[in-house]
């Protein structure tokens, strides 16, 4: 047909990679989740209200007053050198030693993820990711037209034997694997953590197979028990590109993250960063730098840990009391998320409209896969609502699951709905 209007004169001009950028029913439902009546266990927004806001306000004002010509000016593409030094201090918590020159500051670690992919991946290159994996990373890999292959996980994260098997299988297909993307600590969305042995095994496989590890560690300092897990990068400075972030330890709105990379990689990342954004925000960087220099930031991280631990407990306790038999979940030892598996035959994506009508929201498991897996699972986040709201949210969710079980009993299970287009995940500003 021709001669009509498509309401978008550029419809024939878009790149192939824009194909999946469509409106989605799931996104429409998340729009409701932002209302205060809804208990949102969907978003991943850190509870920044717990920050010393007055001190940050004073910092922000002082920076402009006293160093305005610097903070409001362009800066280095690699990031502020003082902040890069301070980042080394932060990373010492997870066992990493490096030089300030090894660090590149980015607009959130999301940008570092984008830069690493841009530098390494041609269309069709394989990126190995956990099953499930961080939705924001999947979005980046998709945007660069990577072939994303999931590797199974268990309660200790990525399974080394499965990694070996996947590498062999993918290479036997004649495909080129560019990297393994992993979140070893307090995984988003799975809520699990790789033990020290597991990390060593994964590193050994990567070394043996010549596989770059992209280690994403935004939650590493937010463990509820003991010292922060030692980063994989702490044991190999050549095999690993490490991504860190102040989004969860200070403030996500500042958009300050970083990458630590071997010399050759880092040089390319800096050039790529300059072409993308010229430089990260000086104002945001120097706010972080001043905060780290003048505030007891380690104490503040403890405040966050306690806050999130209390909320994790509220989530787990209420699920234990209320969720119907057959529901299982991971027990996170840190971070923001628990991964819930529904009673057999239920579909978390199909159930979401019912949940939103019952004023509770979650993210369907399908959002964390590129291959349609995850229907039986969902991600619950406990970072933002207070414990009473979390308990109320679980109470509502349990009722929704009960109703869905009735529907499943009526119509049988295992029916796959027509898959809508567009993202199955919320926008970053969803509570």
């Amino acid at each position, binding site marked *: 047909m021709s001669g009509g*209007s498509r309401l978008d004169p550029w419809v024939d001009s878009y790149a192939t990679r824009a194909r999946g950028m469509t409106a*989605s029913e799931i996104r429409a439902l998340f729009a*409701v989740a932002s209302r205060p009546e809804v208990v949102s266990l969907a978003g991943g927004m850190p509870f920044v209200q717990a920050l010393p806001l007055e001190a940050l306000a004073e910092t922000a004002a002082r920076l402009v007053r006293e160093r305005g010509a610097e903070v409001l000016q362009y800066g280095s593409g690699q990031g502020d050198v003082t902040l890069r030094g301070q980042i080394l201090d932060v990373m010492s918590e997870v066992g990493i030693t490096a030089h300030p020159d090894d660090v590149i500051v980015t607009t959130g670690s999301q940008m570092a993820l984008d830069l690493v992919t841009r530098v390494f991946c041609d269309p069709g290159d394989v990126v190995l990711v956990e099953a499930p994996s961080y939705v924001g990373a999947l979005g980046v890999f998709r945007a660069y037209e990577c072939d994303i292959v999931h590797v199974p996980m268990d309660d200790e994260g990525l399974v080394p034997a499965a990694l070996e098997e996947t590498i062999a299988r993918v290479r036997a297909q004649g495909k080129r694997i560019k990297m393994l993307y992993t979140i070893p600590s307090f995984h988003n969305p799975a809520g699990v953590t790789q033990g020290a042995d597991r990390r060593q095994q994964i590193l050994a496989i990567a070394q043996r197979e010549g596989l770059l590890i992209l280690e994403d560690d935004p939650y590493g300092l937010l463990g509820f028990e003991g010292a922060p897990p030692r980063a994989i990068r702490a044991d190999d400075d050549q095999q690993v590109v490490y991504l860190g972030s102040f989004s969860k330890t200070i403030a996500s709105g500042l958009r300050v993250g970083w990458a630590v990379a071997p010399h050759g990689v880092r040089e390319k990342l800096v050039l790529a960063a300059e072409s993308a954004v010229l430089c990260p925000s000086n104002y945001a960087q120097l706010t972080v730098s001043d905060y780290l220099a003048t505030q007891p930031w380690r104490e503040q991280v403890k405040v966050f840990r306690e806050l999130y631990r209390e909320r994790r407990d509220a989530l787990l306790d209420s699920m234990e009391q209320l969720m119907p038999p057959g529901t299982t979940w991971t027990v996170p030892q840190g971070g923001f998320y628990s991964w819930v598996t529904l009673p057999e035959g239920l579909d978390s994506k*199909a159930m979401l409209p*019912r949940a*939103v009508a019952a004023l509770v929201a979650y993210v369907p498991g399908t959002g964390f896969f590129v291959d349609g897996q995850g229907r039986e699972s969902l991600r619950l986040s406990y970072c933002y609502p207070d414990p009473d709201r979390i308990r109320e949210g679980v109470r509502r969710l349990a009722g929704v699951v009960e109703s869905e079980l009735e*529907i499943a009993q*009526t119509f049988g299970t295992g029916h796959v*709905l027509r898959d809508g287009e567009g993202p199955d995940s919320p926008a970053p500003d969803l509570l």
Partner: protein
Amino acid sequence: MQVLVLAGGLSAERDVSLRSGRRVAEALRNARPDWQVLERDVDATLLDELSADAPDCVVPLLHGSAGEDGAVRDVLECLDLPYVGSRAAASRLAFDKPVAKTLVRRSGVATPEAVALPHATFRELGAPGVMAALERGIGFPLVVKPARGGSALGVSIVRSREELPAAMVGAFAYGEVAMLERFIDGTEVAIGVVETADGPVALPAVEIAPDGGFYDYAARYTAGTTEFHVPARLDASIAEAAADAAVTAHTTLGLRDWSRSDLIIDGDGTPWFLEVNVAPGMTETSLVPQALSAAGIDMGDQMAALVERAMKRV
């Protein structure tokens, strides 16, 4: 003169409603610079604000439940606030697809045969038996949709017995009652109806040709994925019959000010009424704005005319 555009709400169509509201408010501001046009969500503080500082007129652009089922309009009537659009009782009839179809059919407009059943019926009588009866009664292909709701949320086209249970689960996720309707193969059109001093008038029909063949949520709200022809490529007599059907639906259901009927024109040129909307979408990709544009009517002028009409009812 203060006009309040209500948009948002708690329905699954919240996002669409917010976009409709923003667009209508902007159009009203452009058309009537001397009016104060405000936009507002519907929440627990609304009524206090309306009592303290009542607007001269309300434009409810809430899609889905509460907005289109008459509930919010009932409250506006209790508060004696003039508003644009159908009264609460008529909205309730229109929003319930099986009820609307029954009434419109009685006025002589064709509508595909349909059955509306709550989940309880399937549970009590056994889903396999009920689905077999539906297969005999309606036959494939058929359309499964929530009895109440819009934006094609929860809607599936079912072409075989195997696809039916999943479609039922999908529809029941959006409501307690699902409607199964015979699928009519043909040209999908939407016809806006606006009331003037001379009575209700049909706008040019908008012909909808989604790339994937199914005008689902993504096809509705992703620019570029659906081709529209305005006016629809119909013979004059068929276009007239379709316009008459839309106006008949509007008057039969006792609708007021404006509505949008969705119809299918089959191969014989018969217009089949599917459903009617009392708060039509007004987003960048919605149908009524295209129809107004094709008719040479400025959206702001049209909405202002409806506001002025509502004011005269006081």
